[in-house]
């Protein structure tokens, strides 16, 4: 009796074991705004704007012209290069124009504008399950490539590029990244609670495609009910394990996730595949499950609309290209003291200068902050407290880099590995002197990249 009890206890501690990486920070998670709200489908609006460059890599090449009638799910732009993504019509309607429009990245870029057909039932074009079990990996990869999939966590890296494992390399482990370490966002959490079928189907297909030994779903302990739900529903025939991770920022950065779970360090300037790992966001995996269930390409995504500056926070399922103004209207409008609107979370999100922007494939959330949260701060000199050194998950020395950046010694920063910075912002967060460290590193990195490109061009000429 006592013996079995002990065994049970051991089992319990094993389940409760929490993994993590070294360093990092513990911001408040503020997920209570939308944590308990089920994903709701937003009603269709009249116009959708689809920028041709919603992903990392070359912009897509449009294959429709203004005036064309397109169906929901129809291919409207092809991938222009290997690192590029396809684009599909999110609604049935007419192509109104292909013209320059505001892009959430702070530029004006070519976009396909689609006007919804008000009389269409908005059913999916050619809806049917795909018999993936009889497909070869190459055919599965082609379906994913033409499905327009990109990482839905925020960076929007084309998914098929990750799956096209180079010759001589092997993806031993497949990671489903559901850490969602950014405060405020609850997109991945709601997907885990509501769309677990798609997640497990997605994992099944990707395991077949990659030939991996094992799949891990890594998620933070502040989503404990999701961990328990997935553990209870886990199918027995696929090797998948749900790993609880400490609630710590930036746990969702892929390098930190890999370090926490399999204790492998991705070498400087290399990719996860170099340590036999492929990482995908849980939303991407669920969307891949959907294309094989309903033949639905990536035409809609879950967006957390949250923050103290919006009257009715929500987890919305919206077609890609939905204008932000329509979402604000649907969520009851903004409060009067709203000061900043971010695409993404508060740590790495991109502030918007206008509300006239569409939701992109990589938009995980829209955050509305008020006067109360956004307080301009005065910068003081570095006091060498080394809080940033203890926070940096990449083991850099932000204090030193910050001082070099202040005097624009960018070449010296290169020697101190500034290019390994993942721009998570932990250093700026902990700095008691309010030094804009990560902002300076971003500037330094862009300038260094430009300089390297110039040197490469010069070498090519010579």
């Amino acid at each position, binding site marked *: 009796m006592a013996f079995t009890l002990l065994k049970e206890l051991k089992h319990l501690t094993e389940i409760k074991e929490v993994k993590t990486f070294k360093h990092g920070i513990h911001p408040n998670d503020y997920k209570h705004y939308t944590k308990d709200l089920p994903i709701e489908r937003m009603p269709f609006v009249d116009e959708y704007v689809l920028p041709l460059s919603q992903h990392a890599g070359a912009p897509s090449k449009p294959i429709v012209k203004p005036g064309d009638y397109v169906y929901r799910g129809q291919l409207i732009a092809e991938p222009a290069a290997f690192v590029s993504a396809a684009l599909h019509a999110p609604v049935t309607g007419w192509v109104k124009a292909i013209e320059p429009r505001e892009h959430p990245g702070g530029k004006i870029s070519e976009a396909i504008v689609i006007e919804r057909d008000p009389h269409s039932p908005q059913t999916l074009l050619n809806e049917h399950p795909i018999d993936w079990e009889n497909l070869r990996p190459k055919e599965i990869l082609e379906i994913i490539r033409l499905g327009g999939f990109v990482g839905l966590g925020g960076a929007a890296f084309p998914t098929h590029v990750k799956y096209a494992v180079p010759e001589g390399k092997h993806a031993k482990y497949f990671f489903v990244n559901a850490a969602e370490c950014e405060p405020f966002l609850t997109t991945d959490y709601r997907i885990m609670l509501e769309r677990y079928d798609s997640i497990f189907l997605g994992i099944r297909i990707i395991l077949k495609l990659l030939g991996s030994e094992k799949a891990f779903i890594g998620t933070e302990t502040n989503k404990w009910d999701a961990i328990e739900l997935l553990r209870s529903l886990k199918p027995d025939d696929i090797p998948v394990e749900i790993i609880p991770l400490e609630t710590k920022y930036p746990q969702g950065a892929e390098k930190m996730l890999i370090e926490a779970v399999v204790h492998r360090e991705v070498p400087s300037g290399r990719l996860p595949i170099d340590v036999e790992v492929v990482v995908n966001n849980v939303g991407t995996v669920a969307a891949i499950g959907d294309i094989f269930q309903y033949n639905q390409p990536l035409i809609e995504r879950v967006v957390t609309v949250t923050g103290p500056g919006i009257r009715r926070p929500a987890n919305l399922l919206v077609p890609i290209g939905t204008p932000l103004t329509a979402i604000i209207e649907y969520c009851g409008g903004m409060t009067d003291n709203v000061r900043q609107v971010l695409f993404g979370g508060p740590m790495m999100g991109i502030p918007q200068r206008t509300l006239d922007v569409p939701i992109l494939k990589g938009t995980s959330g829209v955050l509305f902050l008020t006067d109360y949260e956004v307080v*301009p701060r005065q910068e003081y000199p570095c006091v060498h407290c080394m809080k940033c050194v203890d926070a940096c998950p990449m083991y850099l020395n932000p204090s030193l880099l910050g001082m070099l950046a202040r005097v624009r010694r960018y070449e010296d920063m290169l020697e101190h590995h500034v290019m390994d910075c993942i721009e998570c912002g932990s250093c700026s967060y902990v700095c008691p002197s309010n030094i*804009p460290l990560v902002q300076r590193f971003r500037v330094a990195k862009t300038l260094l990249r430009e300089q390297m490109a110039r040197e490469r061009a010069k070498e090519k000429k010579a």
Partner: protein
Amino acid sequence: MSALTAILFLAGLSLFLAITLALANRKLKVQEDPRIEIVEEMLPGANCGACGEPGCRAFAESLIQGNHLPGDCPVGGPENAQKVAEFLGIDAGSSVRKVARLLCAGGKELAEQIAEYEGYPSCRAAAAAGGGAKGCVYGCLGLADCVEACTFDAMQMAPNGLPLIDVDECTGCGDCVRACPKGIIELYPINQHLIVQCKSLLAGDEALATCDVACTGCGICAADAPEGLITMKNNLPVINQNLLQLETKIATLRCPTGAITWVEEQQFPEIFIQLKKEKVVQ
């Protein structure tokens, strides 16, 4: 006795070392072209890198090797280039002086601000964080990255939020060109008088909605100018720098917004004179 040993020992040691050094000097002597030193003296010594070499000495070396012409140094100017060329007995090369020109005239009063940028005060940072606060995404962000990059004290921020370039001080080294994230500073020959002070690719009312002095892409200047001088490309006039002798003020007269201007020497002369005066008072 012991003092004598020490003296003898040290004398022997110094003799041995002297012989070694004398031999090493003869064996390992590096023959350096004496002209390098002299040419380096003649160069401005700013080590700015505008010629493409890491510094003035490297430029002097490459001049002697024949990889560069003296005119490739924009800082020294034509007289200096001529002097170096005469000394080395080579061709001076093209020496039309180039200066930095700001291709945006949308100061605070003229261009609409649609947001407030409160982040790290650097144009690069603002460009990465949602593109800055100005309604026009092509325009100057006014956070002075170029002024900081200028090593010749030729730039300063004007009260209207735009950098002002003093062409008398500008050496055309191109540091500001590389610092600008929007690419609105370009090097133009000093004798080019027609300058399009706008980079907006938008046309018509869309461009005007963001800035009062935007180029609307109407093409009137191209029609008025002598044939071939101005061509329209991406809603912007492009001036053919090989036909600069054809330049006339006629091209600017019918411009509805004043985006194309005739620049005698300094851009924005009124602001320039005003700032000069303030400097003198100070």
